[in-house]
């Protein structure tokens, strides 16, 4: 806590309360306690006092009690070197200030001095209930993040206008009040001809700092109307605002004691205070979500002129309050939407291609810290499209850097894989492949409409915000079309890819304490649940552990939930307390135990969409695996389709289960029964398409010639034919411990 700020705020609070006491005394004498008091069209009385205490102030005579309460909150002004004030005391002083300010404004209403007449205009004063509710709905549904309460005056009229424009463009409500050196931002905007009013989301409160209390009255009423909170339940009111109302205070110009005191009141609501002058910072978060007080001296902001600095200032404010960005329309000159995903750019219509045979193109998404990324910055290094002849083949590197408080490096590949999907949505642009085999084709019609390399950046920027806003706060994109640069960066990218490969391969079940579930298939198989561990994909083969984790972070109420492993029950079979509990609760209590590494003892349930079915062949003391695209008969006497009818539908069937084909390669592949050694028959297409990988697994497991000994549909489709073959080749399963 800054001693300086605390001292100023507490001093300010004392002075506001003294003022309120004097004003109230005078008003009571002159007008009497029965004089009615009411803000503009509201049923929330003096809303801050009502919210904090539940007290309904309707007349002057109701005020002394509230003011006494305020005074009781007030800590003494810290004397030099005597004691160090704490955050708590400063915050209390802030609350006391808001009470006193609201009382003063209330008396002004009683006297007919509010809303304020100023320079021949009537200011708005407090916001009425109807408007509050209408904006409140937009705040709840996310169209309007919150409000910016601007206190003071900007460096110049132009700067004032730019700040307000920037805020409006982000859907932020703008409240205007107070002054600095005799100037108010209200003057600045009015002089520049800016329309002020409800229609333009700008509200003029008053020309002194006291009127800033209307902003907090608004926040209080929003919580009371939309937060299911009762007046007096102040903790809930403050929490509601902290988490739901993305508001902040922007102090322009010098900050005096009263501003500090009022700001301390705002901090109670979780609203950070940002000043464009030099004041001490209070950074560690606690009461506010991120930082309490941040100083961003205007002249030190980056930017070539004041307008850029103003933009930067707003950008920083938005980041500090943690406001998420949504971009309604991707700003590119061609149409954009899922309908264009399947388009092919044919040779006749090809204007330029990046990558493809004989060229180089890669895409890489990495994580940076928040200050290393400038959101929305798109840079093209090398020639733009217009500088390249028709039909040319050019190298390209798409380098995306993201930052986010919840971003993790593990999500990088998940996000990177989306490039394909995002870019293909643009009309006339075709994207193929991924990583260093990416390949883009731009059509003539798209380029003629003005599509440039830079627009790839716009597409990606917008989509990452819109789809991954939960984990990504900032995105910047660099597009390298300079061949030298691409070559140079390619090596680095490849190093990162291989690092990721190693990491994914090295992810073990033991290394994590949380697995993830997938319940997507419950729409068909109500009692089916997939528990997905790092060493086993979902049985449809489409989701691995990392995908599920990212999906959970992005959408916590979606189909993927974390499953805490809990205490281990049987390490060899892969049974954990936490998993069992989760499975029980999520299979309509139909299944109470789940082993992850066994097919014979309480195996996972199977739904209708598995890639392969694995079946016990008791005669062979092993298992066969048939894949979905194998239509032939199998040694167990059933085709894939018949097997699905037996095993599918959310049942647990010892001796049979659905698996994703990559599970075959896992070290945890039915490890409790002996792993790959138990496989006696595989669908031919599986055996062929995964030959290399399977060989490697056999090596790893110390049975290098195993693959040869495993039967397939071309040599046996009955167990009678299979068994002699296994015997002839000496398949290891035959001599292993009996399964039954």
């Amino acid at each position, binding site marked *: 806590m800054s001693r300086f700020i605390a001292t100023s705020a507490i001093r300010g609070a004392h002075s506001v309360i003294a003022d309120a006491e004097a004003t109230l005394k005078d008003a009571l004498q002159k007008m009497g306690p029965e004089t009615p008091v009411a803000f503009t069209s509201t049923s929330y009385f003096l809303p801050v006092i009502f919210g904090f205490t539940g007290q309904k102030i309707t007349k002057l005579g109701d005020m002394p009690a509230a003011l006494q309460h305020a005074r009781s909150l007030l800590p003494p002004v810290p004397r030099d070197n005597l004691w160090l004030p704490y955050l708590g005391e400063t915050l209390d002083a802030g609350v006391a200030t808001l009470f006193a300010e609201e009382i003063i404004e209330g008396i002004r209403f009683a006297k007919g001095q509010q809303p304020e007449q100023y320079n021949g205009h009537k200011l708005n004063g407090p916001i009425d209930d109807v408007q509050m509710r209408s904006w409140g709905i937009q705040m709840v549904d996310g169209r309007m993040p919150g409000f910016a309460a601007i206190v003071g005056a900007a460096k110049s009229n132009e700067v004032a206008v730019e700040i307000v424009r920037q805020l409006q463009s982000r859907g932020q409500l703008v409240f205007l009040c107070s002054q600095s050196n005799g100037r108010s931002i209200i003057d600045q905007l009015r002089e520049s001809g800016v329309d002020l009013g409800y229609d333009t989301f700008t509200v003029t409160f008053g020309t002194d700092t006291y009127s800033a209390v209307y902003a907090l009255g608004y926040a209080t009423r929003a919580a009371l109307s939309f937060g299911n909170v009762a007046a007096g339940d102040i903790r809930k009111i403050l929490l509601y605002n902290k988490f739901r109302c993305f508001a902040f205070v922007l102090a322009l110009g010098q900050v005096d004691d009263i501003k500090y005191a009022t700001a301390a009141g705002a901090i109670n609501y979780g609203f950070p205070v940002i000043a464009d002058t030099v004041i001490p910072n209070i950074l560690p978060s606690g009461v506010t979500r991120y930082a309490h007080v941040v100083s961003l001296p205007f002249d030190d902001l980056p930017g070539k002129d004041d307008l850029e600095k103003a933009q930067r200032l707003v950008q920083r404010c938005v980041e500090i309050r943690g406001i998420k960005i949504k971009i309604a329309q991707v700003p590119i000159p061609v149409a954009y939407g*899922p*309908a*264009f*995903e*399947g*388009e*092919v750019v044919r040779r006749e219509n090809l204007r330029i291609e990046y990558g493809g045979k004989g060229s180089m193109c890669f895409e890489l998404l990495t994580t940076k810290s928040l200050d290393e990324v400038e959101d929305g910055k798109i840079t093209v290094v090398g020639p733009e499209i217009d500088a390249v002849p028709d039909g040319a083949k050019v190298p390209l590197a798409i380098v995306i850097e993201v930052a986010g408080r919840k971003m993790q490096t593990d999500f990088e590949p998940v996000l990177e894989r989306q490039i394909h999907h995002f870019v*293909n949505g643009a009309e006339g642009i*075709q994207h193929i492949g991924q990583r260093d085999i990416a390949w883009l084709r731009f059509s003539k019609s798209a380029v003629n409409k003005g599509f440039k390399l830079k627009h790839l950046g716009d597409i990606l920027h917008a989509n990452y915000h819109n789809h991954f806003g939960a984990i990504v706060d900032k995105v910047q994109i660099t597009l390298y079309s300079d061949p030298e640069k691409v070559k140079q960066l390619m090596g680095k990218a490849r190093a990162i890819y291989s690092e990721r490969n190693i990491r994914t391969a090295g992810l073990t079940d033991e290394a994590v304490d949380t697995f993830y579930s997938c319940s997507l298939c419950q729409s*068909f*198989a*109500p*009692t089916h649940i997939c528990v997905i561990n790092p060493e086993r994909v979902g049985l449809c083969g*489409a989701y691995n552990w990392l995908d599920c984790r990212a999906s959970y972070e992005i959408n916590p109420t979606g189909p993927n939930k974390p499953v805490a492993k809990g205490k281990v029950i049987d390490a060899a079979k892969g049974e954990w307390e936490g998993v069992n509990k989760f499975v029980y609760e999520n299979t309509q209590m139909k299944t109470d135990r789940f082993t992850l590494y066994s097919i*014979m003892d309480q195996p996972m349930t199977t739904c*209708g*969409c598995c890639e392969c079915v694995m*079946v*016990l*062949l*008791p*005669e062979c003391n092993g298992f066969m695996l048939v894949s*979905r*695209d194998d239509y032939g008969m199998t040694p*167990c*006497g*059933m085709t894939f389709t018949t097997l699905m*009818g*037996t095993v*599918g*539908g*959310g049942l647990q*069937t*010892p*001796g*049979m289960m659905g698996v994703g084909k990559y599970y075959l390669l896992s070290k945890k592949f039915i490890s409790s029964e002996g792993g790959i050694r138990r496989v006696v028959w595989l669908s031919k297409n599986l055996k062929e398409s995964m030959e290399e990988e399977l060989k490697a697994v056999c090596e790893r497991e110390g049975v290098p010639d195993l693959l040869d000994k495993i039967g397939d549909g071309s040599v046996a489709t*009955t*167990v*009678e034919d299979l068994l002699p073959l296994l015997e002839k080749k000496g398949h290891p399963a035959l001599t292993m411990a009996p399964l*039954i």
Partner: protein
Amino acid sequence: MALSGIEIYKHLPKTNCKKCGFPTCLAFAMKVSQKAIAITACTDLSETARAALEAASRPPIRLITIGGDSRKVEVGNEVVMFRHEKTFYHPPGLMIKLKDTAPLEATLKTVDEVANLVIDRVGLKLSLDGFAIQNESKDAATFARCVEAVKAKADLPLVLMSPDPAAMEAALEKSARSRPLIYAATKDNWEKMAELAKKHSCPLVASEPASLDELAALTQKLNQAGVEDLVLDPGPQGFSSSLNTLTQLRRLALKKSFRPLGYPIITFPAETTGSPEEEVLLAGQQIAKYAGIIVLSRFSPATAYPLLTMRLNMYTDPQKPIQMSPGIYPIGAPKPSSPLCVTTNFSLTYFSVATELEASGFPSWLLVCDTEGLSVLTAWAAGKFDAEKIAKSVKAFNVEASISHRSIIIPGRVAVLRGELEEELQGWKIMVGPPEAMEIGSYLKRYWTN
């Protein structure tokens, strides 16, 4: 506790002799564990194994067959309370009641109408199952004559309804070969009825409205008399009691394996309802809630159709969605110039698209591809709904002969197929439709200009 397939397998001879109709002992064991077949189907089972397995594998609700070789109704053998838990296997028989007092001519006209009622619903043929003939005349000869005449007109499954064993005997003489259901053994006549059932090997209804206790007592007496194929009649049931009683009966069978009440149930919805309209509603409820045979008091095609549809819907396997037969379907009365849309043969997908096309005001052609009953996205992900498949379907169903233009609208969710489809269908215009069926109407208004 049901045994797992493996546990059952352990008891089997393990010879894979295939005499049970299954290729291996394990395949058979899996089916037994699902109670889809009785353990006795294995011919080589040892006595000890049979004893060990029989109790665990016996279907909790006995499968009862009514009718002869030409047409029969099989009911019972249900294993779940709710269709989503597995499926409902044996749709209830819907029977039309006839009285032997009605003029024979009129009766036979109805018989003819019922027998000929075939409703074609998306490739499936729906029809009623047979007749319940009531011995209203109380006269044995009249009853027998009526039964004989009905049987001669249409050899459909029958329920013979008479409290009089003599009349029953007379009617059975005329019809026993087609295994009619005898209605009914009561606590007064059960010995005689049991005799008849045994003699003619026909299934028998045990009727006891007093209470489930007494109903169970009756079935046990009938069992002891050697009758195994029973159907329960717990007495007249209105909306509430039907739901409650039939649920209790199903629970007793499934949850308590209570043998004396482990049989299908017969209901007569007209007995408790005041109007034909109401009878239909109660019959509808009983289709979903646990009836095995439903006897309707009158025949009307207008109510038979919705009831047959209800039965079809409830007895669809929820884990194996119904598939449409692939082909090109006219929606409304399309002309050669009307729009052509393509979708998968998952029934729900088909119905959503067809319903929206129907409502769009654009008569259209709907091309349904064989995707093995998968919905659009799932089929696409499984590689069963790709450009090649669509192009093949266009050829296979000779779409080009039905339409005069060359534009095809593909579901918005598989917009990715557009490029490949342009390759596969040279000279066609590939249009990407909306992602949701609901938007088809607006889409056609906006983009269909042929």
